[in-house]
């Protein structure tokens, strides 16, 4: 609990973080980076170990409390989906760090003979990570793990929409990590704008497409590369030849068990056949009641809607007159608690507001088609989502789905789990984003892969140099073309 002096200082700090302060911050971090401090294996490992300590049981309750304060997030979700995942990432990064840092030897061909070559991973420099409010802990620290492992200096800007977590991050990172290289800047639009005016070596942004455009335009001024982790309408296609109970539970797990639908990879809407829809709705109703009881608004196992803005936004989606009569389950709201119960809508018109923007909430529209293959056209008529799901036992359909649906990631017969697989790149395509991370992909996202070619003074081909002749041209063509036979022919004047 902060004293009033500390709160006052915090206010002052917030007020004075303008472009000048941002510029000074970047300057200081640049100087620290230039000193080489963050490059050593020892420094990187020490920071990752410190992060592991930060995530230890000692602070678990504080983290759970902060997330409960910001989102009424059930403790299990915090522990399982934020803390445990981060611990695994840290552990994985520590285990693999030496291997990731080792340069990769590559083959060379006859055109550069004699030579050796390698690819060296080097840190980019000073990077900016802008995090989101729905998984505020996970989405702040997961990229930081990659940035540190890759040897960068880091500034984190947590989301102001989750203020308790933002404060806690500032406090804990300040206590555990090397403040000369890793800093947290709290704040909202003004502070973010001040940060975005600076020249960064990379900007990693998680959030929505509108702000992503602002971030990328700001990055363009300095030719700063970006990773944009956005969202979209992630569809779940449900076939009829499945274990319905299991599939239903997994859809619920990805939707309402993930921050009450406020997750970038939650199934946004379902597509199923007209014939199968009633069965699916019944199964969903049954399982939802088992999970959340007859009065879901009272359930302790559901996150609330993050704030009244989003509550209003979701209410507007529900109040769309195109949806009248479409609610088949739920639809209850409690504005005082910012709670909306799990809600299912059937046969939602494609031109309704709900089907035109990412829902990011506990509303699940079901679109029906005559034949399941039509679902591909439905999905492809929209922008590319961050994830797409298919429940089926039909292998041909699975193949076609993988071939024809473009999304950040696909999961067959489950939802959201691919997030936990560190060997899979996690990122979007098209409107759902640019770049990827997790596991080694995080390390790579924050590294520059420097090509290095070693040549010796042994032997020099006169054909490289002027004055140019037809013979030289012929020989060079053959040499660069690479085939031994071609070279021999050229040498003998046969080409």
């Amino acid at each position, binding site marked *: 609990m902060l004293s009033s002096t500390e709160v006052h200082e915090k206010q002052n700090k917030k007020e004075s973080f303008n472009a000048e302060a941002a510029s000074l911050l970047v300057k200081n971090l640049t100087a620290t980076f230039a000193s080489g401090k963050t490059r050593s294996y020892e420094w990187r490992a020490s920071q990752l170990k410190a992060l592991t300590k930060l995530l230890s049981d000692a602070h678990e309750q504080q983290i759970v409390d902060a997330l409960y304060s910001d989102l009424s997030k059930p403790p299990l979700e915090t522990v399982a989906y934020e803390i445990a995942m981060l611990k695994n990432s840290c552990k994985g990064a520590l285990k693999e760090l030496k291997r990731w840092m080792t340069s990769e030897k590559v083959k060379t061909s006859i055109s550069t003979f004699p030579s050796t*070559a390698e690819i060296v991973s080097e840190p980019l420099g000073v990077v900016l990570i802008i995090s989101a409010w729905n998984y505020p802990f996970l989405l702040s620290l997961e990229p930081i793990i990659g940035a540190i492992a890759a040897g960068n200096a880091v500034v984190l800007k947590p989301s102001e929409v989750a203020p308790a977590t933002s404060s806690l991050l500032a406090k804990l990172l300040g206590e555990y990590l090397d403040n000369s290289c890793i800093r947290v800047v709290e704040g909202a639009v003004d502070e973010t704008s001040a940060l975005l005016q600076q020249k960064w070596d990379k900007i990693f942004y998680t959030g929505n497409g509108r702000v992503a455009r602002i971030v990328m335009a700001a990055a363009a001024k300095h030719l700063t590369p970006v990773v944009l982790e956005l969202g979209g309408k992630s569809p779940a296609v449900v076939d009829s030849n499945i274990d319905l109970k299991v599939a239903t539970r997994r859809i619920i797990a990805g939707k309402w068990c993930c921050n009450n639908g406020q997750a970038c990879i939650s199934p946004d809407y379902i597509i199923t056949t007209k014939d199968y829809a009633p069965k699916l709705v019944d199964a969903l109703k049954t399982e939802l009641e088992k999970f959340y009881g007859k009065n879901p608004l009272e359930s302790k196992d559901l996150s609330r809607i993050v704030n009244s803005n989003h509550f209003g936004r979701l209410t507007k989606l529900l109040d769309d007159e195109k949806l009248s009569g479409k609610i088949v389950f739920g639809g209850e709201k409690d504005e005082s608690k910012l709670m909306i119960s799990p809600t299912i809508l059937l046969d939602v018109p494609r031109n309704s507001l709900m089907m035109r923007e990412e829902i990011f909430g506990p509303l699940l529209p079901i679109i029906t088609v005559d034949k399941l293959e039509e679902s591909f056209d439905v999905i492809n008529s929209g922008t590319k989502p961050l994830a797409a799901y298919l429940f089926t036992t039909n292998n041909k359909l699975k193949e076609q789905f993988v071939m024809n649906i473009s999304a950040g990631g*696909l*999961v067959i017969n489950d939802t959201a789990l691919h997030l936990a697989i560190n060997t899979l790149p996690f990122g979007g395509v098209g409107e759902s984003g640019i770049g*990827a991370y997790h596991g080694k992909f995080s390390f790579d996202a924050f590294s520059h892969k420097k*090509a290095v070619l070693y040549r010796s003074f042994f032997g020099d081909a006169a054909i490289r140099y002027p004055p140019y002749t037809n013979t030289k041209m012929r020989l060079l063509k053959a040499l660069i073309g690479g085939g031994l036979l071609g070279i021999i022919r050229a040498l003998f004047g046969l080409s």
Partner: protein
Amino acid sequence: MNMDMLVTLVRVPLLVMPWIGCEFLRLRTRNNHICSRTFGMLALDPLIGAIAAGNVVVIKPSELAPACSSFLANTIPRYLDSNAVRVIEGGAPVSEQLLLQKWDKIFFTGSPRVARIVMTAAAKNLTPVTLELGGKCPAILDSLHNPSDFELAVKRIVGGKWGPCSGQACIGIDYVLVEEKLSSHLIELLKKFVKRFYGENPLESKVISRIVSKQNFTRLCNLLKDPLVAASIVHGGSVEEKHLLIEPTILLDPPLYADIMTEEIFGPFLPIITVNKIGESVEFINSRPKPLTIYAFTKDETFKRRILSETSSGSVTFNDTMVQFLCDTLPFGGVGQSGFGSYHGKYSFDTFSHEKAVMHRSLCLEIEPRYPPWSKFKLEFLRLAYKLNYFGLLLHILGLKRYK
């Protein structure tokens, strides 16, 4: 990938020859790409990757090299599927129009100034970009005890400076760093090789590329206008305006504030910057924007490691120039002001691809604790599961493990 276009892969042999500089702008849209390049044939290099990755392509060649632009516009349709690969010719207005469209990727080769315009346009549609830019690529010349090594190094420097398009290449040497005590020997050898390659009168030799345009010719001439810069010329300096020719020119320690040392030269001027100890080149390079490549002629392994770990550039080549371009297993691209993203070989394929994560699960084998209502049992189960603590899980399930 959405576009199932049947494409024919066209292999184009790279020729490292002094083509007249061409700037190309290649766009990538709903499977199209744009790229800009200053080497005629190298405009096709990204095209290979784009096609291999299964995309539909638009190429916008540079209007500064009209003959190459025409050649591409006329020849490509004869060989490639024109439903999938198009060439759009034109100048800035055409580029502007193209940049208003929504592309799936933009691949740009050119200057940082235009790169900013391209990336800003891309930002409107969240289009990923690859930017292949340039920078002031230095050549560090260490003292090489073997005189024939030193001579070979200088020969390669000459080849790496004026060979590629009279210095108009992104990976051409921009300037040389050398210890003061070696500078006169260096200049002597440079002159020797320039004479050997280009004859007594390079402007009439027919072996040097001309400057690509009147605008660039004027820009280059202006670089020499500063009296202190002009005074530092130790060889060359003559120009022939009619044919836009500038002879190989060497300068010794021009003022560091002058444009010739603050901007990418992209022309046939070679400044030699002297330092007391060659190690100072590291600081010199680091005080400037990251270049596309660093060349270092040295046999000192410690110095090599220092250059690698203390400088940052797109790439580093030891003891030669330019040839890293031929190595398809190396990613070719910049960092910082010299760009981002890379290509060549598989990197080209990757740059025009989306790596889609796919996870297959079966519908059997359920983990109950995934689902609410949550309980302490379930929480502990998940905790143990994340740690892959199988024994602990077993105990837990059997009710034998104590938990918080």
